[in-house]
Structures are given as structure tokens and as C-alpha cells.
């Protein structure tokens, strides 16, 4: 007999709809709340999206899209369509790159999440922390460490491979497969967090019921675990794909030397000119198809997932975590797998930062010699007033951004899952679609918006926070996953006991989803604490942030100082994540059920 997951409506049809009448004051409050959500979403997201589309239709040489001398036209799109062999090859590369990256991120992140959350592999808490840690390392450092390991001629792994008597190398960092592996593994922390969160919320009794009914472990995985994880895996996959499409560090550092052009590196080169204004119109025309692709992908995901309540796993009738007991061989293999991943993604880049910041000779000699310890770079960075200003500004801007983005994400997810309807479904699309907005376009839109509408905010750290908040893609998935796993019956029980809507939110919903949303908040905070692309477009001397300062030092050739500041950022983020984990107290990070 095959175990079956029942939809809640099938078991208790009467409980599916709103269970009680609403008073006038409460209805008014609800309307005000919904209007606020719509307004905030429109301000943060619709304006940049509109700017993107309108900019793509503005044509003119050496003019900004909103200038009077620009005219309306489709030339930017015609140029894109008639771009010749260069664009065709670029699109083909992009397709392979995004698909490959997503597959690697899901396979590696998903398997690691399963080992940490659902098996008895030793050291799961440590591995959890190590697999989340790469989020705190600036992407440029991860790329450099990848080059050090897999450069065709001098990469450590390839050199070792040849010393063992083999010819060629394990992997060429400067190639499309090298890019796929680097980006895919770079996205593992994201897929790992999203999938492990869902695995943690999975009631082990569902699997036990399957085993009792005669299902094998793979059978239970396929018929019970997989269907319940579909929202999380789908979200992780789509986010990985969209982030791979938009992020440009790996395409620039690994793809450009090999002449492999993808969508994001094409965007990057389009906005970097020596004399003219950036070609925002062309950039926007390139970005609009990416955005459309994002919408289509999201529509597909929602269709694939179907109704939200099918995935409810945290109900009001008790909950039990658990997992699979592996034998000693399985445990050994699991430790080896997680250890290799941790070394590659977390330990390697941090060690590299340490070497670059304290051993200048290592860097200046191309890592042939380590040389002696020299604290000069650290002294310089710690002495500079700009360092402390940048670190403080980053905390304010990314904290504000994460809070606003998560607040909006939870509100929209809750309204969509509980109320449904096209408005909230559309809002959910809007929130996710922000992932596809190229930073340069979002930055331009923000520049225009705050120059004309919110002038008092222009160039301030608060403006940066508001712009960061527009990046709602990842947090919206976190929020949605958290809200979807909470049964409506919890809220209904509170209503029956006489709680108001606000009290239900504050005392029932919020505490239950806190671990999930804290994870999403931290993801957003961490990603933006070290962000540089948006900030570079928008910062002023008083609002310089850590990512900008690292970029300035790196580009000025002050590699030691750039690395020292990068390591300082990593340390701050580790402390922040650890503190948040302690404060959250619900084991969202580094605590598996059996360790709690």
C-alpha cells in the first residue's frame, strides 16, 4: 500500500475558509494593513520595475533615459535581437551556465541538508555552521580561492593531480564547467538553508507511517519526503537560477579570461564606459527578458507546487522530528562529503583572506612564497576612520533593508496563503521578481527616485537600506515557506479563544515562524552587509559601506587592506549570526532535532 499525503481540505473541508465574522474596527484595520503592504511594495519594487521597462524604451546617445533629449523607440530591443553571433553564443552559454549551476546547487545543497537534518552523521551542528558560513565571505574572495585551486596551469589541485602522474587537470577554473562548479557550489549555502529548513519542519511520523506500511527508505523519500519538500526545493532552485543569472563575480573573474560571456557579464561591460554615460537603455533591454523569464519560472513553480495547504507539516496536534540512522560506513562517507564541502566553501576562502591580509609577500609573489607575517595592512585598516564608518553604515543599511524586506515578505506571504486572490498572488510574483532586477538598473531607478521624490534621503545610509529592501526575492521565499508550514488551525484555535487579529499575529503566528523568518532576515542582512554594486552607485562619503570600501581597496591594488577588511566583515557577520541564533533560540541554525 502506498502512503498518500492528504490535502487538508479532503480531511476537514469545513475548516478551509475564514472561520469567524469580522468586526468593523478589525475590518478597517485589516484594510489599512493591506493598503500599507501594497504601498510599500509599490514604492520598493514597482517603481524600479517600471523604470526598467521605460528605460528600455528610451533611446539616445550619451543621454540618461529620463532626459528630454532621449526619445521613445524600440531600437534597444532591435539591437539585442540583431546582436549577431555574439549574443547568440552568449545566450547559449547563459542557458548552460544557469541550468548547470542550479543543478549543482540543488544536488549538493540538498544532499548536505539531508545529511545534516535527517541522518545521524557526527558533527552536524559544526557542519551546519560551516556550510552557512560561506554566505559571509565576499564573493570576490570565493572566486579568487577557486582560481588558486583550479587555475589550469597553477591551481593547487591541478598541480597535485599532475604530480600524481596524471595529465591535464581535474577542472579548469577558466571554462564554462569551471564557472558552473564555482557558482553552483557558491549557491550551496542558500539551497542548503532553504532545504534544511523544510527538512527540519518535516514530521518524522509521516516517514515512519510509510515504513510501517512497507515502504523502503528510497520509496519513502520519493513518495513522502520529496512531495513535501517540493516548495522548498522549487524555491531553492528558482532562486539559484535567478541569482546565477544576475550575479557577475564568477562570470567576470572566471568566464572573462576564457572569453566565456554570459548574460550578467554582458550587462556589466555595457555599463562600464570610459567617456560616455552608461548605456542604461541597452542594459534595461537586456534585463527585461531576464525579468520575464523570472515571472515565467515563478508561474511554473506555483503551478508545480499547487495549493499551499498540501505542504502543511507543523500543525496543532503535536510535531515530531527525527531521521535515518546510517551505518558506520555511511557516517564516514557523510563526514568526508560534508568535510570536503566545508573546506572548499568556508575554510579555504577564510584562510586565503588571512594569508592575503597578513602575508603580503604571498600575494605579491603570486603565492609562490608565504614570507613573514606583516601586520601592516591590519594596522592601516584598523586606524582608518573610514573602516569603522563603513562597518557601522553597513550594519544600519543592511539591518533596515532586511527588516523591511522580511516584514513585507511575511505580510505578503501570509495574505496570499491565507486570503489568496490575484492581488496577493501578483504581489508574491512582484516580490520574487526583484531577484531578476540587475543591480545597476535597480541602482539607477533608486537614484532617480530619491533625487526627485525623496531628496532628503538621497545619498544617506537610510536610502541604501530602502534600496536593499527591494531585494525581496530570497526573503519572500523564506517567509512563504515559513508561513506555509503553519496550519490554519493554530490561528483558528486562538480566534476561538477570543484573540484579535493582531494578537494572533503577535502571539501565535510570529513565534511559530520566527526561526524561519530569522533565517531569511539573516540571509538578507549578510548578503547586503558585504554588498557593493548597488552601494557603489548610490553612496556618498558619509554613507560609505563595507562592500564599497573593500572594492575601493581591491581596485586600488591595496590587496592586504582589502583582505583585512574582508576578514573583519566575516568575523562581524559570524558574530551577528551566532548572536541571532542564540537570541532566536529556536534552533534555526546549527541545531538538529536530536541535538536540541
Amino acid at each position, binding site marked *: 500500500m502506498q502512503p498518500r499525503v492528504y490535502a487538508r481540505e479532503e480531511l476537514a473541508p469545513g475548516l478551509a475558509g475564514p472561520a469567524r465574522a469580522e468586526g468593523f474596527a478589525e475590518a478597517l484595520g485589516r484594510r489599512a494593513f493591506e493598503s500599507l503592504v501594497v504601498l510599500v511594495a509599490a514604492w520598493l519594487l514597482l517603481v524600479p520595475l517600471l523604470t526598467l521597462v521605460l528605460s528600455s524604451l528610451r533611446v539616445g546617445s550619451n543621454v540618461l533615459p529620463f532626459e528630454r533629449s532621449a526619445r521613445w523607440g524600440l531600437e534597444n530591443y532591435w539591437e539585442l535581437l540583431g546582436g549577431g553571433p*555574439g549574443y547568440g553564443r552568449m545566450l547559449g552559454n547563459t542557458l548552460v551556465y544557469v541550468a548547470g549551476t542550479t543543478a549543482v546547487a540543488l544536488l549538493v545543497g540538498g544532499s548536505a541538508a539531508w545529511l545534516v537534518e535527517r541522518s545521524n552523521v557526527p558533527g552536524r551542528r559544526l557542519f551546519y555552521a560551516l556550510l552557512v558560513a560561506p554566505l559571509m565571505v565576499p564573493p570576490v574572495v570565493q572566486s579568487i580561492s577557486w582560481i588558486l585551486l583550479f587555475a589550469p596551469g597553477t591551481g593547487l589541485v591541478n598541480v597535485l593531480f599532475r604530480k600524481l602522474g596524471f595529465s591535464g587537470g581535474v577542472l579548469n577554473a577558466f571554462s564554462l564547467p569551471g564557472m558552473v562548479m564555482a557558482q553552483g557550489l557558491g549557491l550551496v549555502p542558500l539551497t542548503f538553508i532553504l532545504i534544511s529548513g523544510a527538512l527540519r519542519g518535516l514530521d518524522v511520523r509521516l516517514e515512519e507511517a510509510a515504513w510501517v506500511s512497507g515502504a523502503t527508505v528510497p520509496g519513502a523519500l520519493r513518495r513522502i519526503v520529496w512531495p513535501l519538500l517540493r516548495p522548498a526545493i522549487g524555491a531553492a532552485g528558482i532562486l539559484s537560477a535567478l541569482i546565477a543569472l544576475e550575479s557577475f563575480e564568477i562570470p567576470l573573474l572566471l568566464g572573462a579570461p576564457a572569453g566565456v560571456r554570459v548574460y550578467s557579464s554582458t550587462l556589466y561591460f555595457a555599463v562600464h564606459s570610459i567617456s560616455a554615460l552608461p548605456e542604461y537603455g541597452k542594459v534595461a533591454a537586456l534585463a527585461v527578458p531576464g525579468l520575464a523569464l523570472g515571472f515565467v519560472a515563478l508561474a511554473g513553480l506555483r503551478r508545480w507546487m499547487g495549493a499551499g495547504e498540501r505542504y502543511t507539516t507543523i500543525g496543532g496536534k503535536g510535531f515530531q522530528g527525527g531521521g535515518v540512522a546510517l551505518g558506520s560506513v555511511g557516517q564516514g562517507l557523510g563526514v568526508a562529503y560534508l568535510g570536503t564541502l566545508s573546506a572548499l566553501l568556508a575554510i579555504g576562502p577564510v584562510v586565503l583572506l588571512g594569508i592575503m591580509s597578513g602575508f603580503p609577500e604571498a600575494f605579491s609573489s*603570486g603565492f609562490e612564497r608565504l614570507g613573514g607575517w606583516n601586520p601592516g595592512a591590519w594596522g592601516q585598516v584598523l586606524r582608518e576612520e573610514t573602516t569603522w564608518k563603513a562597518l557601522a553604515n553597513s550594519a544600519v543599511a543592511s539591518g533596515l533593508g532586511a527588516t523591511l524586506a522580511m516584514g513585507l515578505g511575511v505580510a505578503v506571504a501570509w495574505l496570499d496563503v491565507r486570503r489568496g486572490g490575484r492581488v496577493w498572488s501578483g504581489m508574491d510574483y512582484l516580490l520574487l521578481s526583484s531577484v531578476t532586477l540587475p543591480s545597476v538598473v535597480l541602482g539607477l531607478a533608486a537614484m532617480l527616485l530619491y533625487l526627485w521624490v525623496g531628496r532628503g534621503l538621497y545619498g544617506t545610509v537610510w536610502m541604501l537600506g530602502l534600496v536593499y529592501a527591494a531585494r525581496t526575492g530570497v526573503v519572500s521565499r523564506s517567509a512563504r515557506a515559513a508561513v506555509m508550514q503553519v496550519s490554519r488551525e493554530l490561528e483558528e484555535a486562538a480566534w476561538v479563544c477570543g484573540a484579535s487579529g493582531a494578537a494572533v499575529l503577535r502571539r501565535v503566528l510570529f513565534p511559530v515562524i520566527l526561526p524561519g523568518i530569522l533565517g531569511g532576515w539573516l540571509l538578507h542582512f549578510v548578503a547586503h552587509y558585504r554588498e557593493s554594486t548597488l552601494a557603489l552607485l548610490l553612496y556618498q562619503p558619509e554613507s560609505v559601506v563595507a562592500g564599497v570600501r573593500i572594492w575601493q581597496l581591491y581596485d586600488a591594488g591595496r590587496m592586504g587592506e582589502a583582505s583585512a577588511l574582508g576578514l573583519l566583515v566575516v568575523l562581524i557577520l559570524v558574530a551577528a549570526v551566532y548572536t541571532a541564533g542564540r537570541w532566536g533560540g529556536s534552533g534555526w541554525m546549527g541545531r538538529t532535532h536530536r541535538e536540541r
Partner: protein
Amino acid sequence: MQKWLGVLVGVFLVAQSAAPQAADVLQALRERARREGGVVLLTSVPQLGEPLKVRFEEGNPGVPVRLVLDPNAPGRVTAEAIAGRRSYDVLLWSLPGLSVVRGRGLLRPFVAREDLAPYGIPVGVLTLDGYGLRLLSGVYAVAYRPGRVRPEELPRTWEELLQERWRNRLVGDAIAVGNWIAALGVLRGEEWATQYARRLRDGGLAVVPQPATVEQLVLRGDRDLWVGAFAHQVEQRKQAGVTLEWVPVGPVTYASQFAVAILSGAPHPEAARLFALWYMTREGRAALEREGFWDVAPGSGSFIRKRYDQRGIRIVLEDERRALRRVELFERIRRIVLGEER
């Protein structure tokens, strides 16, 4: 003879009396700049912005430089100006870049009588029809890591870089490579430049986004020659302890110009003047040289210039006409080396 002696003595006395006067005027300007609280410098070139900030602050205590580095500086300054906002005092950029901003009426002209003469600064530093001051020249060379390439192997002419022995051994950053080939195109024609760019690309020239990445690829031996590098840029890296060297390549090469300009409506006008003018003074020039920014103008006598002269390589200094021609060629060349155009 007596007449000439009299003239020389006269010149000496004028110079003696003018020198302290110029110093006094500069000091007075410094005081006014201090009262304004500092200067805001905007540039797209971090390799220039950072060291210039440091040296200026050393030479002008009490006048801090707030530096804004933005790869899209023109978009930023234009958008802000259209919205009626003036945040920056000084723009530091290449000649063609400044030319675009000047075309929009966003630069304040220098008046030789008021801005230069009192400080003893020669009129020859003016460029862009008086809207900019020449700061430094970057002369194109080829950089390499000693030990990785034998001295006798090094290229002597630009054409040698097309030889089969350099296949898959060259690297440069996207903007520098585009500029370098476009600059050679100014000297040798567009057809030559486009063919040259195609042949380099087909020969496996690697194009990366940033000089720092180029440097690492060369240092680690993944690539052997850094093309599109400026001689002074390599000298700066050597000063920072990096194991690199450069070689002059000819028979003719090109020196791109970087200049400073004051933005119209600058919120700190006196501090802006001080920043721009100080680098034109002897003290400022010496500070530039300490930072590795050696002049390559004829007669400058700098050691970079001497190395070119010793090899009989002619350096063509950029003027505004050549700069605009270079920009015209740049986009096309860049598309070719990036593989966007055949």
C-alpha cells in the same frame, strides 16, 4: 653681454619676489579651504583617487578629501545635476571623460589670470579649452613577471605580440585593452586597430574586468604578458612590493592624459581650487612622483621617459582631438576584444 646679464638678474629678482608671493597666495587659499571643511573628489579611477587623496592630505593638513569612487561617475554627476543637486567639487578623469561632462556645461572654467598666474602655475597645464588641468600622462607599455619571461624574449614592437609564441599568454583588463588598441588606432588608423584587435582576440587574449585580476594572473603564471598597462602603473605596483616589470614597446606609443576639473556649483569652491591647483605646483608634482606618477612629456627627464628615449620609441601625447578620436574607436575595439563583434 651686460644687457643679457641685466635681464638674467632681473628675471632672478622677479622670480625671487614672485616665489614667496605664490606661496603666500597658496597659503591663503589653504586657509579658505580649511574654513570650508574639505573637498569632495569624484572619480572613476581608484588607482588615482586613493593615492591622490593621501598625498593631498599630507601636503595640506586640515583640508580632508572625501573621496567618491564610482565606475559610473558620469551618470551620477549628470543625474544629480539635472535634479539640481551639487554634491562634488572636483572631478578627476581621462580627457574624453571630462569632455562629456564639460559638454553638458557641468564644469567651471579656469581663468589663467586669476587661477594660475598668482600661484606661478604655467598656462600650459590648461586643457579642454581651459576647463581642465593636466594632471598626469599614462604611457602604454607591456608588463611581465621577471623570471617568467626571458629579457630577450620580450616584445619590442606591438606587432610582435601577434606572433604565435604569445598565443594564450596575453591578458589585460577590458577598459585598458580597449583604450590601448584605440590609442594605437589613433596613431595608425582604424583599419589597423580593428585588425589588430581581431588578431589578438583570435590569439587567445584574455580580457578580465579589473587590473587587480590581471596582476594576479600574471604573478601566478597563468598568463605571461599584461597588455594595456601604463608604465607608471607598474612602477606603483613595484613600489608596493609586487614582482612585476615593464618594457617599452614601439616604434611609437601613446600617452593618455588624466586631468582634474572643478564642477560648476561646487559646494566647496576654494577647497576645489586648492586641490586642482596644488597638484600643479612644484610641491604637488613632487608628491605625484613620490606616488609613482612620473611625467613623460618631452624634456621632463623622468626615468620612464628616458627608457623610451633610449630605445628610440616616440611617445605621442594625447590632446583633446586625439582623445575624442580614441573614444570613437574605443567602443568598437572593445566589442571586438570581448567577442561581441567579428
